[in-house]
């Protein structure tokens, strides 16, 4: 029963990351396309993003509890420290990005070129940061 529950928690954790990573690539691609207003896609992603992030943190702590967190001085513990620091930086980056998307509603007409450029960079950074977090998670799980 306990192992089935932990399996479910891990499944939800992996699916949550899939939503974040897949969505960031999709929104980045949407911003690269010049022929349509990206705001509905950006806003939908941001709504999903924060929901999935909350679920990821909850299930991440669940995973940690199931595996048994190591001491901070072990190699595993050091990787965990790095992962937590990277995730904290990623959350700050995401706050900046989401609040910028939220302000786009005030603009009338098409999205401004400078906003599109900067947001495209932010979404690309989001995707790369998520890639780094997945790599750290893989090291924690198998390394």
């Amino acid at each position: 029963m306990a192992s089935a529950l932990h399996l479910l928690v891990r499944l939800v954790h992996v699916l949550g990351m899939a939503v974040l990573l897949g969505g960031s690539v999709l929104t980045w691609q949407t911003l690269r396309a010049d022929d349509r207003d990206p705001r509905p896609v950006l806003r939908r992603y941001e709504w999903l993003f924060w929901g999935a992030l909350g679920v990821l943190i909850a299930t991440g702590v669940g995973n940690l509890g199931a595996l048994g967190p190591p001491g901070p001085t072990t190699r595993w513990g050091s990787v965990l420290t790095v992962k937590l620091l990277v995730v904290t930086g990623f959350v700050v980056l995401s706050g900046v990005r989401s609040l910028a998307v939220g302000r786009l509603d005030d603009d009338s007409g098409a999205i401004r070129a400078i906003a599109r450029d900067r947001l495209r960079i932010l979404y690309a950074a989001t995707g790369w940061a998520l890639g780094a977090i997945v790599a750290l998670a893989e090291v924690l799980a198998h390394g």
Partner: protein
Amino acid sequence: MGDRASRDETESADRAEVESADRAEVESADPFEVWTVATFDLAAFSLVVLLSGHLSGALAGTLTGLGTVPGLAAFGYLWVLVLVAVRWVLSDGGIAEGNRSVGSLLIRGSVGGGGVGVGLVGSGVLVGGAVAVVRAPGLLATVAFVALVGTVVGAVVGAVAGAALAVCNVAVARVSERVVPKTEPDYSSSSSS
């Protein structure tokens, strides 16, 4: 004379309607901003607690003692509390520059954080205390004392965390305004990267 009185009444009613609409606009927080800021605060707070616990070596003992289902339920409950608190904090105006003073946001952030602390610790202690009292009615005075102290500590910790998170929210909002600034209308799209 009658026309003038009637015109005054109409103007007064119009003014009241406009004031009421303005008040309604100010008092309703933007759901997107509430969702973003609340979950950002929850994530930042959780990560700081996790990192501190991990670096101090206290995380292992704490997580081992907390089961998966109660842990997830507590996290969900905390999420709801933070959403309600942030909705209240932002109902007085958003966090964008010029919407309101930073001082007002700090005060509301502290009060909101205190409320979350009381809600989380207070209800946790009450539920645990109720179970203890049912099993051993003689513990009532002890449970009441622990509930009181726990609620006060929760309120203080929550208020400090709320103020710190309000500062973080303002900083992130200001960086966001600089990174993606409002500019003069330019309807052209740029080339892809």
